[in-house]
């Protein structure tokens, strides 16, 4: 008897498949879009640019204090030094979790997200539910991700209202002494770089 707005999302699928195909066909016939370019864009974000980029940045910051310092001072340049540049990452800021303060990133007004280091945002990041609640009740949102912070931890939410893009550098987990960057990167989850999660513990990696 209950309805829910998700049923509209479901109904949307077949309809959207047809509408999107019609649009792409029209644009292709008009010479405005080359389907091979569309394929190349999809391939880039489906297979090449994703959160493993950001994980490599975080791992290096954990392993190399000089890089961490650079990342803190000029994240755009430090990240570019690893080859991650471009669309939706033109102006980067890295924010570092501490035992006293946890960072969480949101874009309340649309879906701004640091694509070169994290790839495409997950659906929840773009949904009104997250956008509405992250800036007001982040502890309740974090609980939905299985994260419970001490009551005394300060929470710092960054609303990406301009073209600055934020990357959360989580705290390095205990028990990771001597691990190399590749092993460290495997502990770094996408959600932990948004601030919605924590890195994996080494035994769980």
């Amino acid at each position: 008897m209950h309805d829910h707005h998700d049923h509209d999302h479901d109904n949307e699928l077949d309809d959207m498949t047809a509408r999107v195909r019609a649009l792409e066909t029209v644009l292709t016939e008009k010479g405005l879009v080359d389907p091979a370019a569309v394929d190349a864009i999809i391939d880039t974000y489906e297979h090449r640019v994703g959160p493993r980029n950001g994980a490599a940045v975080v791992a290096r910051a954990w392993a190399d204090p000089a890089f961490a310092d650079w990342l803190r001072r000029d994240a755009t340049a430090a990240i570019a030094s690893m080859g991650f540049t471009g669309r939706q990452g033109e102006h980067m800021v890295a924010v570092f979790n501490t035992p006293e303060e946890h960072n969480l990133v949101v874009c309340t007004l649309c879906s701004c997200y640091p694509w070169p280091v994290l790839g495409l945002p997950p659906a929840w990041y773009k949904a009104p539910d997250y956008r509405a609640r992250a800036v007001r009740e982040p502890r309740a949102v974090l609980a939905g991700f299985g994260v419970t912070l001490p009551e005394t931890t300060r929470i710092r939410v960054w609303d990406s209202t301009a073209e600055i893009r934020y990357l959360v550098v989580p705290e390095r987990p205990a028990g990771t002494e001597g691990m190399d960057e590749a092993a460290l990167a495997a502990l770094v989850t996408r959600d932990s770089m948004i601030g919605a999660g924590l890195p994996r513990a080494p035994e769980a990696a």
Partner: protein
Amino acid sequence: MNGPQDVGGRHGFGPVVPEDESLRFHADWEKRVLGVTLACGALGHWSLDTSRHARESLHPAIYYNASYYGIWFRALVALLERAGEVTDDELAEGRAHRPGRAAHRCLAPEAVQGALARGGPSDREGPAPAFAVGERVRTRNHQPAGHTRLPSYARRATGVIEAVHGAHVFPDTNAHGRGEAPCPLYTVRFEATELYGADADPTLTVSIDAWEPYLDRA
């Protein structure tokens, strides 16, 4: 605009549903919307600010029922129609009636990597900042009918300048074709109790990135 996009701090929404980071798309049509939207950006008919405004201009009844790629798609159609590139009839038939106007700007497959890696920086030469890190500012009661990036939850609130980012393109003018009008951009941090009242989480602070015309000295 106080549109459907302006959801920060609103009540009544539902749970946040985590998803595995290996999941990239929820349907094949989403991939095509991503690719076509980015490819159409190369046509030069609109700016990023204009496209954001097209998305937030969808009726709330549509905006809150669509997935985000559904929002992108509807806004893209609106932008292409406004640019004179497609018509409702063409989309209904799935067949072009006329050639494209900006076909000479069509993004070539070999240009994709360069375009994505280059991006579109928004920093510009512009006026020197009026405020310095640590200064207290108050956001204006700025609520134009057009595009703005000052969210309503952060209006009329006092905060502290935490970073100065130099001059950036001003979305309020650029979205409407009224020029880039670069002006200083700041990160401004607020106590949640200042934003939401005394019952708010006392351990929470929230920052926005705010252009100088949004701010007064507190």
